[in-house]
């Protein structure tokens, strides 16, 4: 079994997967708490616009998609702040437009596009050293930012007015949360795929919420589950020759189902005894 760790592509996939899971698990606790699960899907689908543009023009897809993601997060934030459209509608409009742009650009590109297929479904062979370096740098920045801002983000999540009255500027942290979410979702697109990536943001937190006795435990469990899910999924992908995205997400869904059933059984047992 240990031989698989000697393959450079597997080392890159695992390291990249763990880094991404740390941020997505953490961010997921805020996204689930704010009932904004739709944002993950939206950003992931929208990133296809940036990726398709990069493939068509012949420039590096990941940096292009990251810049594209930051831009979309800023547009979403501006619409949310300046209009009465509402977050869900704003996400729906902006991100489907970007996805449509991506599909149009892809249709202009002649022939089979293996790179675009790996962006859609995830591929552990697709993580290059260059991608890993970008992931490492952005993950480190995101983890430092989350460590510093964690309490403020929790405060704003539960009570925006209270946070404002204690001297915090909630809008600034909302924007930071959107940008961090956009960056981490796009970083994980190569590993998990555009279609499935949002589940890695949501499922570990939704599972942790079922069993956590406190918010601190909620965050720790969500991060641990995200890392576990990614590692188990990647190993399954390698041994069973499955698409990495599907293997990771199904692992997460399996853990969620087991946890939910376990919780229900415990409740029945507690009632009877």
């Amino acid at each position, binding site marked *: 079994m240990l031989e698989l760790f000697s393959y450079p592509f597997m080392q890159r996939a695992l390291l990249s997967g763990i880094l991404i899971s740390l941020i997505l698990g953490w961010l997921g606790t805020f996204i689930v*708490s704010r*009932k904004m699960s739709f944002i993950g899907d939206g950003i992931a689908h929208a990133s296809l616009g940036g990726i398709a543009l990069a493939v068509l023009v012949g420039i590096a897809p990941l940096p292009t998609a990251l810049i594209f993601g930051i831009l979309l997060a800023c547009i979403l934030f501006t619409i949310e702040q300046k209009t009465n459209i509402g977050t869900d509608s704003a996400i729906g409009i902006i991100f489907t437009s970007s996805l449509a742009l991506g599909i149009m650009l892809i249709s202009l590109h002649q022939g089979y596009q293996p790179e675009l297929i790996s962006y859609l479904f995830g591929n552990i062979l697709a993580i290059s050293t260059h991608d890993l370096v970008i992931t490492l740098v952005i993950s480190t920045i995101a983890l430092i930012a989350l460590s510093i801002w964690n*309490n*403020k983000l*929790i*405060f704003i*999540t*539960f*009570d925006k*007015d*209270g*946070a*404002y*009255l*204690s*001297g*915090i500027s909630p809008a600034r942290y909302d924007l930071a949360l959107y940008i961090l979410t956009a960056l981490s979702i796009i970083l994980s697109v190569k590993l998990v795929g555009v279609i499935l990536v949002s589940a890695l943001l949501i499922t570990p937190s939704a599972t942790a*919420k079922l069993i*956590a*006795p*406190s*918010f*601190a*435990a*909620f965050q720790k469990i969500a991060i641990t589950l995200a890392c576990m899910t990614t590692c188990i999924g990647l190993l399954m992908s390698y041994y069973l020759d499955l698409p990495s995205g599907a293997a990771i997400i199904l692992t997460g869904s399996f853990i969620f189902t087991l946890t939910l059933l376990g919780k229900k059984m415990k409740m029945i047992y507690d009632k009877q005894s």
Partner: protein
Amino acid sequence: MQKKISIKPYIEIKDVTHRYGTITVLDQISCTIEKGSLTAILGPNGSGKTTLVRAIMGLLTPDKGTITINGKNPKEMRTNIGYVPQQLQFDRTLPITVKEFLEVYTCTNTHHQHKDSTHILAEVGLTEHIHQKIGTLSGGQFQRALIARALLHKKDILILDEPSAAIDAEGEETLYQMIEKLNREHGITCILISHDITMVHRFADSVLCLNKEKICQGTPSDTITPDVLKKLYGSEMGMYHHHH
């Protein structure tokens, strides 16, 4: 204990008008609130009470008019204000404990010295619930947790929006006594939105009657009259008579 109320207006509201779309919710409101007073705002639903306190906190900028606190813009003074909202909109199934709910406030607030959260929880009678999840508290317990959080720092102003809405009669009495104690012993200027005329009569020293426009302001005995209540709540409430 004899309460000291400054003669100089602490909060000054001048000609404040605010609209939501075409609906006017505050119409040329002018009034003052003295430092160290316990002011109740009375008025029916939709009379602009919450809009006015949100403007006082700087959470909303009125379309017209000005509000100053100690001569300054409300936004500059916001860290001196403690706020107990009518309810907090968040998912009650989320796992956050009472202790975390308070600590997240002390960790983020760098403007004031923090009081000991266990001491404050004892003061509001929530010590045994410290490790309980917020979502599992009763309405009254949750309201007390919100007050505890507002008290973690020495605030000059405490604004409470219908604090007794989710509390039973016994809890309501305790709550009003607690507000009175904060006002009298700690000198905190309290602004209280309430529908409970009996409690307002007992505890407030100033009443602002609001129904989009200012109906009147003064002591409870002067303002809570059948005529004023009729203007505020309609004919049935106009028959109300307060017994001391």
